[in-house]
């Protein structure tokens, strides 16, 4: 196609034929380079631009009875209180008589993930084979990143049962005591 002047094969002076050839062939290397660069750009922007969607399911709200709370065994549930400054305070059991009292940890691989992995093994041993329930209670000083991080951690560690619920005043006191309730 780009080769406009094909060697006709007819006789003639060698020099002339050579000159014709040089003029007829267009060097497409740069054009191909550019085209592939643009292809790469469009490919990456089309597929990478789409944001991720993290699905969340909340329990059905009982409007008739706000105190309709499901009782769960103390030795199955750990509670994560999301505080300020990207820190979590977690405890095992009930806050009034905890099996493990509140401890402050960080987010990520070295922090909360180790706790979750440990409790995932420990809870079935203590409660007779029943699996771990994680209760996530974001305080008003926590930010959206914290919530997304902790939900992501649930997926990574593969915690089957977890829920987001409302923090109560006693738990806010714990956060205040541990200095996790700053603006």
């Amino acid at each position, binding site marked *: 196609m780009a*080769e406009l002047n094909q060697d006709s094969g007819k006789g003639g002076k060698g020099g002339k034929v050579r000159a014709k050839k040089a003029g007829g062939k267009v*060097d497409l290397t740069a054009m191909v380079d550019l085209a592939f660069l643009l292809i790469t750009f469009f490919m990456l922007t089309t597929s990478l631009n789409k944001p991720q*969607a993290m699905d969340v399911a909340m329990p059905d709200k009982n409007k008739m009875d706000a105190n309709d709370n499901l009782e769960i065994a103390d030795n199955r549930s750990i509670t994560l209180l999301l505080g300020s400054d990207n820190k979590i305070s977690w405890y095992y059991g009930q806050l009034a008589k905890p099996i493990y009292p509140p401890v402050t940890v960080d987010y990520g691989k070295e922090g909360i993930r180790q706790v979750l992995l440990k409790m995932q093994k420990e809870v079935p041993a203590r409660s007779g084979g029943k699996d771990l329930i994680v209760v996530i209670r974001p305080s*008003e000083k926590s930010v959206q990143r914290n919530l997304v991080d902790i*939900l992501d951690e649930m*997926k990574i560690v593969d915690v089957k049962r977890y829920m987001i619920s409302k923090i109560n005043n006693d738990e806010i006191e714990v956060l205040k005591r541990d200095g996790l309730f700053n603006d």
Partner: protein
Amino acid sequence: MGKAKVKRASTSIDMTAMCDVSFLLLTFFVLTATARQPEVLVVDTPQSTTPDKLPDDNLGVISVAEGKIFFGVKNPTVREITLKNMSQKYGVAFSAEEYEKFKQLDEFGVPMKNLRQLLSLPNEQRDEKIQPGVPVDSTETASNELYSWVQEARKATIEYNRSREGERDFVDPGPMKVAIKADANEKYPIVNLIIETLRNQKQNKFSFVTGLRASEQ
């Protein structure tokens, strides 16, 4: 002479076919790429390792940044029906021209009574600064405008899907999905208000919009 010619022919490769293919692909990607509209409200979403992508259609997005809430419906036809329903509910009438303008509006953050004013402005003047956000509170009454918007958008989606049932190759996409696109540094109380607003109308399932985390930390 003969030898020299052979050598020359072998050094330059014929790029024609490669060029053809690459431009064909380029054309394909240019045409399929949807031009990204500049967002009115700039949201810096948090990152997660979730592999699921956000759907393109059949979706309502609630954006939150700096304490302001914006709402947008992806499908322009559903958008129009939603405004019709809202206009009845709040007693604000819109002209045909305003409906047309609203169809072009990706997201907005004004109370119902200021919506006409917003639509009267040219596109480039509808920036984030003049929009105070959609009013939201913990009630289920008309003062919680986000509640009404989400509810009417869900109804409009059902209406729109029903009207398309007769079409060939129509697959019912189901009820509208709701996504919350909150800024990474947004405080929890406002996110909680939105979650409660959704739960109050039994929209118990929703998505958080996140960016992709490059690798596990």
